[in-house]
């Protein structure tokens, strides 16, 4: 086994191990009733945000494209989940919440994936900042469209209506325009959330360590070089984008089916930025980092309830400082010097080699 492979295996094992351990500890705490009420209510949202952060990391960290509309896919997923779950209950009297949840999450993933593919075709022709702004535009368009969507179910048939509430008499409303998806029966469970997180980790970690994943990272590192080596840039960027959309849709369904209503204003541009903060603070291209930062940053505001007013202020300052400290040549040099003794501790076999040609190319 090569050194790189071993390193990757250890990293993956730590990632899975931590998530599984956290799940069992929390399960025991729930069984023993030692968990606080507010934390218990946060468990499913935490799972949803972890999936969001990991999937966005796939787009930003691995494929190197800044997407500012990730919450749009979550909203597609949440609405699809609510409609499918409501329809199954009304039309087939399907009481079993587990099958209903599974089907809802599956459909949400499929629909979000289709939307992601439709958006990806035009978006991925653009580059850099243009791409960022177009994903933002798509996020806003999705929010606008969902705001005027009306869905009802009557005699087992779904009725859709757009712009005005033009539905037959006596329908059971599932989605009611600006009021959002209404009367959802909350069926999400922590176990379902855990399974979804595990699926996400398996998909993303396997993807980035595969041939496809290496191609995705090559297009990030140098588009022109990758293209001249025969890597189809559009195809691989599309793979990353659609996979992320599917996962975000599933997270949306999980999140939406955890409460009794879903409103369009839950999935604004700010929510996309929130997920972006998780990814950036966890480390671009670091899956475990995304998991940890999504967990902590979701729990933190609950813990620091009295400082809730300053939460976003602190977020903003931390975001700016992290970006400056990790990207400025001067501060990076200082940090490297400070951490050099610590790094030397972990470097056992090889003696410290002088770096040839300097660390980071400017």
């Amino acid at each position: 086994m090569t050194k790189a492979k071993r390193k990757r295996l250890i990293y993956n094992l730590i990632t899975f191990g931590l998530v599984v351990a956290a799940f069992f500890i929390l399960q025991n705490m729930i069984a023993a009733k030692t968990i606080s009420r507010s934390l218990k209510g946060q468990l499913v949202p935490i799972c949803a945000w972890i999936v969001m952060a990991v999937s966005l990391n796939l787009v930003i960290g691995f494929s190197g494209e800044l997407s500012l509309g990730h919450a749009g896919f979550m909203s597609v997923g949440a609405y699809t989940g609510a409609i499918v779950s409501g329809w199954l209950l009304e039309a087939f009297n399907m009481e079993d919440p587990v099958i209903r949840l599974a089907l809802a999450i599956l459909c949400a993933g499929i629909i979000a994936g289709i939307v992601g593919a439709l958006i990806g075709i035009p978006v991925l022709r653009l580059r850099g900042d243009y791409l960022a702004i177009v994903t933002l535009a798509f996020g806003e368009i999705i929010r606008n469209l969902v705001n005027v969507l009306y869905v009802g179910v009557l005699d087992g048939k779904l009725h859709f209506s757009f712009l005005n509430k033009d539905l037959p008499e006596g329908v059971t409303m599932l989605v009611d325009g600006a009021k959002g998806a209404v009367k959802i029966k909350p069926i999400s469970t922590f176990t379902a959330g855990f399974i979804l997180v595990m699926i996400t980790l398996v998909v993303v970690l396997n993807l980035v360590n595969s041939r496809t994943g290496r191609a995705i990272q090559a297009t990030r590192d140098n588009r022109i070089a990758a293209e001249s080596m025969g890597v189809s840039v559009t195809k691989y960027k599309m793979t990353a984008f659609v996979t992320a959309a599917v996962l975000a849709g599933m997270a949306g369904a999980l999140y939406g089916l955890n409460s009794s209503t879903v409103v369009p204003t839950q999935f604004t541009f700010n929510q996309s930025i929130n997920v972006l903060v998780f990814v950036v603070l966890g480390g671009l291209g670091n899956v475990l980092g995304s998991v940890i930062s999504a967990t902590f940053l979701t729990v933190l505001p609950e813990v620091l309830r009295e400082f809730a007013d300053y939460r976003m202020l602190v977020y903003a300052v931390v975001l700016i400082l992290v970006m400056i400290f990790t990207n400025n040549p001067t501060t990076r040099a200082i940090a490297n010097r400070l951490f050099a003794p610590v790094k030397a501790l972990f470097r056992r076999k090889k003696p410290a080699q002088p770096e040839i040609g300097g660390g980071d190319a400017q």
Partner: protein
Amino acid sequence: MIFLDHLINGLSLGSIYAIIALGYTMVYGIAKMLNFAHGDVIMVGAYIAFCGLQYWGVPPVLAILLAMVVCTMLGITIEGLAYRPLRQATSLAVLITAIGMSYLLQNIALMIWGANPKSFPTTFINSASLHLGKLSISSATLITIGVSVVIMVALTLFTARTKLGKAMRCVSEDRGAAELMGINVNRTISVTFAIGSALAAIAGVLLCSSYPILQPTTGSMPGIKAFTAAVFGGIGSIPGAMLGGVLLGVIEIFGKAYISTELGDAIVFAVLIIVLLFKPAGLLGKPMREKV
């Protein structure tokens, strides 16, 4: 007649977008970065003018000047503290920093002025309206369109004729070469931020004169739309920003009037996407050649 009414409203809104878009496009052309915090500078400018008019009782012209001065200093400070250390960083890092800065400004405004919307005093500008037959145009609309025309002409002359304007064009063309020719790049970028922020202050006052609700998030939607306008016209191009801004304002008003009120924003963004698909560099932008 209704059509003309909508057209004039669209032109007025479009002129505001154009002024904001000018700030985006100048900064992008020279510093090659998306200044996401620009929309929030608008909001700060509007709040300063609001305080001047409402609390301190200064005359309108002085209030606007005060807002411009504060925003100019704010723009230079933001550039110096947050963006200058990242001159060599990837565009992703700079963009995320700018988003952080946008959040910071919004939250500072939230702490100072609170979340409750303030109603912007519009009496100083809405005193009279012009009647042309059945058509009546409010003075706010006239002033908005007039001011933006003046700004556009002045800015075009500035970049074309003055030494500083030439320096700005040089830096935007090739930063390294400009530095070798003895142009102080950092100062030129600072000046660009200063001009952009002063324009943002004016835009803030004009925006709130037409839509007099002021809250910490006031600037974000117009900011995003003006940015869309800048991309639409070809980012980095000054005439492009003007054209994009005006077109976007007209499209938005017509979309809201003739298609659907709720879908106004969606229409604006859909038009942007369609334009970018056929002209990836925007309407007046120059396509970039990639070199290895």
